[in-house]
C-alpha cells in the first residue's frame, strides 16, 4: 500500500457536520426541497438521535418519477436501507476504499460508541482537503510566491485524470429517455449536443428532480430543461485550476475540450479529483502520490 497525502488523515478532518435528516414519513416533495435548498445529493431518513433507517439520493428520486409515484409518497418507500457508515477516527483512505468497493458516493460518520450520526463524507469533501493542502504548499499553483518566478513544476493536467467516456444525447430527445439513460449511468449529468455534436447544455440529476417537483411533462424535449451554456475547460488546464473553478462556481463537473475546440473529449468531476488522493502537482510524486485508477 503506497503512502499518499491522505495517509494518517482521519474522516473527522474532512467530514461535513451539517446534517439533514428526514422523517421516514416525510414526502418525496419535502425531500427534493431539502436536496435543493442544502445542495446535497442525498439525505438520511430516520429519527434524530437514532441510527438512521435509510438514505434517499437524487437517483432514487428519479426512479420514483419514472415509476410515476406521486410527490406525496413517503421517502420510506424509496429509500435505500441501511446507509453505510464509518467512524470519525477511520482513515480517509479506508473510507475512500469503502466507497469505491461499494460503488457509493458518501458515508455517514457515527459517533464513537454510539449510533448518533455526527457527519457525512463524500468525494468533494476530500477534494476540499487536498485543495487546502495544495494552497498551503510552496509548489501550489495559486501560491503568491509562485507569481514572481517561472513555474517549473510539472502539474497534473485535466486530461490525465478526466473520465474519457462522456454520455451525451441529442437536444430533441424526450426527457423520459434522458431519465432512463441517467438512471442506468454512474454519472450525475448528461451532455446535450446538437446535430453537429456541439455541446449545447447539460441535464443533471438535480435538474430532473426539480422537473419532477415542478410537475414537468416527461415528454418535453431535453433542450427545454437543460442548463446552458456548458461549463468547459481545456485538456491542458492544470487540475488545480479546474478544481478551483468547480469550487468557486459551485459546479460538480466540467466538460473537457481539446485546445482546438472540437467536440467534448472528457469530463472532470470533483470525484475524479478525489481519486488523486494527493496534491495536484508532480512535486508530491516522489514520496506520496498514488493515483487511484478507476
Amino acid at each position, binding site marked *: 500500500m503506497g503512502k499518499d497525502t491522505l495517509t494518517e488523515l482521519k474522516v473527522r478532518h474532512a467530514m461535513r457536520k451539517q446534517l439533514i435528516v428526514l422523517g421516514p414519513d416525510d414526502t418525496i416533495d*419535502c425531500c*427534493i*426541497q431539502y436536496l*435543493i*435548498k*442544502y*445542495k446535497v445529493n442525498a439525505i438520511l431518513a430516520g429519527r434524530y438521535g437514532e441510527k438512521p433507517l435509510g438514505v434517499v439520493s437524487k437517483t432514487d428520486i428519479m426512479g420514483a418519477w419514472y415509476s410515476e409515484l406521486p410527490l406525496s409518497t413517503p421517502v420510506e418507500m424509496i429509500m435505500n436501507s441501511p446507509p453505510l457508515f464509518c467512524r470519525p477516527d477511520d482513515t480517509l483512505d479506508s473510507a475512500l476504499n469503502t466507497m469505491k468497493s461499494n460503488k457509493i458516493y458518501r458515508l455517514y460518520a457515527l459517533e464513537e460508541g454510539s449510533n448518533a450520526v455526527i457527519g457525512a463524507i463524500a468525494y*468533494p*469533501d476530500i*477534494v*476540499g482537503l487536498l*485543495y*487546502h493542502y495544495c*494552497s*498551503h504548499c510552496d509548489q501550489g499553483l*495559486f501560491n*503568491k510566491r509562485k507569481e514572481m518566478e517561472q513555474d517549473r513544476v510539472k502539474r497534473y493536467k485535466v486530461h490525465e485524470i478526466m473520465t474519457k467516456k462522456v454520455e451525451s444525447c441529442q437536444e430533441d430527445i424526450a426527457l423520459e429517455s434522458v431519465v432512463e439513460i441517467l438512471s442506468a449511468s454512474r454519472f450525475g449529468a448528461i451532455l446535450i449536443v446538437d446535430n453537429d455534436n456541439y455541446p449545447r447544455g447539460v441535464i443533471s440529476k438535480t*435538474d430532473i428532480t*426539480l422537473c419532477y*417537483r*415542478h410537475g414537468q411533462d416527461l415528454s418535453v424535449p431535453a433542450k427545454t*430543461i437543460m*442548463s446552458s451554456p456548458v461549463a468547459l475547460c481545456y485538456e491542458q488546464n492544470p487540475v488545480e485550476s479546474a478544481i*478551483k473553478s468547480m*469550487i*468557486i*462556481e*459551485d459546479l460538480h463537473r466540467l466538460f473537457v475540450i481539446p485546445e482546438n475546440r472540437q467536440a467534448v473529449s472528457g469530463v472532470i468531476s470533483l470525484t475524479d479529483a478525489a481519486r488523486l488522493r494527493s496534491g495536484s502537482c508532480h512535486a508530491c510524486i516522489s514520496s506520496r502520490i498514488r493515483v487511484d485508477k478507476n
Partner: protein
Amino acid sequence: MKTTAKDVMATSFKTLRPDSPISEALEIFKTSKLDGKTIFGIMVTDKGGSIEGMISMYDVLLFLLPKHVKIWGNISDIEIEGIIDRIAGKLKNLFVGDIMTPKVISVTPDTHLMMVLDIMIKKHVRRLPVVSNGEAVGMVYISDLFNHLLERA
C-alpha cells in the same frame, strides 16, 4: 390592558406563491419598503391566502453560498461584485417554493405580545406571520415589537 400581536403587526405586506420565480422575490427584497423599512422576509401563500412557507434573505444567501465554502479561506481572488447576477443562471429554473422555509411558526392576532417575544427569542426569528382563520393577516417584526415596548417604557 392586554397587548397582543394585532397591536404591533404590519397589515400591509407582500406575498408570493410557491411557483413564483426567485427573481420576483429578489425584486421585492431590492425595491420594496413597507412602513418605511426594507423587508427581509416574505410570506409564501396559496391562492386562498394560507401560509405555505416563508422566503427570507437567509434562504437566498444560503443558496448563494458555495457548497465548499469552508475552503474559500484559501482562495484570495473571489469576485463578490455581481455575485447575485452570476448566480442568477442557477436560480432561473427555481421557484420560491424550492428554497423557502416550509414549516413556519405563526401566531394569531390575539397571541399575547410576551408569547410572541418568547417564540422569537427561542426560535431565533425576527418576524412572525399572523394567521386568522387559516389566512395570513399580518406580520410582527421584532423591531416593531421592540419600539412598541420602548414607547411604553
